[in-house]
């Protein structure tokens, strides 16, 4: 257990300003936490770089909320001088020449990166078990998954190793693991934060997202990360805000909707009653809570739509991984360039990745594209149009972030789901429409966490945070660290 890093950013900031602790002590404390990790949370370590950075930090002012505080980053962020593999063998030994914009912005704010965290290979998975270092374990039950693809960031945040861990969210890759690890997982609006330097999985869905242990921390981090980046044309030029103001002043909108179909489908009675208990309390706090009938066939469309779009985009995004300019060299003395690439890619990608690539690529073939990729893109439009209709009248969608306990690792299957349950894929709504969406702890059941999720209109990130703060106060579940107290 760390002494310092189990606390929140705001707590550490206070301690730093009051000189109760130094940045270097925070880094050493974080390193101790990393060394004690028992969940397989880490890829490359950057201890020396972190110590050096900590030593260079001078005076910390009141309004330098992030300065001197350690953080961790998923292994799909390009980090200058630190090996970055996206937990795939095909990138073993790759040492980037540049920092992702998110990394450089946090560094500029004075934060110190101490290590890279494990993930599902190339972010293509939701279990946190498919990375080249093997499964990442749930801190609350080592037999269970912590969820993915941002598994190492979830587990390390839950373990109190650092108060912030960057992840990325393409379908629910931060918000689902947050639910399984009793952390706060925030995916801001698509385009709000530059993706430059984030290894792409499916760029039209990929979002910079991250784990903290309370809502206020999440708002400070967004203030640091948001904004137009000349290196990412999809980053929005809309004015960025002081998102912490929404949290501190509890600024929120008033109309909350929940989906009837989701409510009807919840089987876990304890979850359902806790969910309704929360809805009732929200009503008590003056919110209007509305049951909304979102088309069920569109909920059932979530899984295939997501799978086809993401697999198709991913085949193209990962076509640069050919072992020519970076990555492990081909073995077996290839005689042609095809042999060279095939040797690298056959060895470098796992079984699951290859299967997904074949299906994704098949759906893009000219003869199939209309029936597969384009159809999925059309389904996406219907899904998003209907969400926008929802948002015409309502300000937030409130959903449980997970509907059952995290799966046991030995019970997992990697096959394409034959009977997808829309509850498992519901958070993808946030990615299809680029909506800001946050998961925070709701309850524990048999010692295992369940989260609640709030999704709002695009670029209403502040209001989503403000609403989350309201819920955080209702549940009283914040700053949770596994094994603390």
């Amino acid at each position, binding site marked *: 257990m760390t002494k310092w890093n189990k606390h929140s950013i705001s707590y550490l900031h206070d301690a730093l300003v009051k000189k109760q602790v130094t940045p270097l002590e925070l880094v050493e404390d974080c390193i101790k936490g990393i060394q004690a990790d028992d969940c397989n949370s880490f890829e490359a370590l950057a201890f020396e770089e972190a110590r050096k950075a900590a030593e260079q930090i001078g005076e910390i002012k009141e309004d330098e909320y992030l300065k001197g505080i350690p953080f961790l980053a998923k292994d799909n962020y390009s980090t200058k001088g630190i090996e970055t593999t996206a937990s795939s063998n095909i990138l073993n*030994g*790759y*040492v980037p*020449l540049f920092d992702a914009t998110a990394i450089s912005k946090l560094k500029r704010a004075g934060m110190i990166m101490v290590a890279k965290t494990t993930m599902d290979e190339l972010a293509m998975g939701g279990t946190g078990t498919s990375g080249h270092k093997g499964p990442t374990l749930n801190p609350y039950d080592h037999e269970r998954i912590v969820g993915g693809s941002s598994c190492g960031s979830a587990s390390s945040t839950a373990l109190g190793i650092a108060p912030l861990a960057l992840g990325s969210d393409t379908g629910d890759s931060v918000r689902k693991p947050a639910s399984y690890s009793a952390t706060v997982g925030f995916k801001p609006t*698509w*385009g709000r934060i530059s993706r430059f330097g984030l290894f792409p999985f499916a760029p*039209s869905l990929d979002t910079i997202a991250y784990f903290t242990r309370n809502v206020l921390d999440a708002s400070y981090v967004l203030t640091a990360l948001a904004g137009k980046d*000349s290196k990412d*044309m*999809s980053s929005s030029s809309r004015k960025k805000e002081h998102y912490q103001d929404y949290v501190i002043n509890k600024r929120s909108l008033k109309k909350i909707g929940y989906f009837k179909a989701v409510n009807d489908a919840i089987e876990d009675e304890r979850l359902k009653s806790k969910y309704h208990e929360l809805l009732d309390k929200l009503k008590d706090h003056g919110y209007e809570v509305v049951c909304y009938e979102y088309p069920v*066939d569109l909920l059932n*469309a979530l899984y*295939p*739509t997501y*799978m*086809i779009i993401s697999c198709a985009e991913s085949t193209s995004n990962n*076509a640069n991984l*050919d072992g*020519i*300019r*970076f990555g492990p*060299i*081909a073995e077996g003395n290839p*005689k*042609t*360039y*095809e042999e*060279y690439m*095939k040797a690298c*890619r*056959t060895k470098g*990608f796992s*079984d699951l990745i*290859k*299967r997904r*690539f*074949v*299906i994704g*690529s*098949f759906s893009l*073939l000219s*003869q199939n594209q209309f*029936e*597969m*990729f384009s*159809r999925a*893109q*059309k*389904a996406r*439009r*219907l899904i*998003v*149009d209907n969400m926008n209709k929802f948002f015409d009248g309502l300000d937030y969608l409130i959903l449980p972030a997970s509907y059952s306990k995290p799966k046991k690792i030995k019970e997992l299957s990697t*096959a*394409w789901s*034959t009977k*997808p349950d829309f509850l498992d894929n519901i958070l993808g709504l946030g990615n*299809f*429409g680029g909506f800001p969406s946050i998961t925070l702890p709701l309850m524990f059941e048999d010692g295992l966490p369940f989260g609640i999720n709030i999704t709002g209109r*695009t670029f209403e990130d502040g209001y989503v945070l403000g609403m989350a703060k309201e819920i955080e106060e209702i549940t009283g579940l914040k700053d949770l660290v596994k094994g603390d107290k």
Partner: protein
Amino acid sequence: MIKITKEVIEKCASNLMFALTPQQTDLIYEEFATVLTQIDFLKSIPGVDEVEPMTFPYKDHQRNMREDEPKKPLAAKDALANCHTKLGNQVKLPKVVGNQNDQME
């Protein structure tokens, strides 16, 4: 739609520059059955073919482009720092048969 056969799957993989084991091919073949059922389901959603395919999560057209101002390029040494197959300042590969721009059509 192209009919799914094991040959088609192998060809797809080969075009993606990797090989499959027979077991992997079999598994993909089985998965395709599921995928196709789901595709049929998408097709059955009312109104699905009446909307345009969606690429971007929301409509937010940009107006800004990059000014044509070159920045300092990478030194060759840095550009190839992660390359493990090089000769001098160039990337070395087994002889590529065919003319340059062969593929540019």
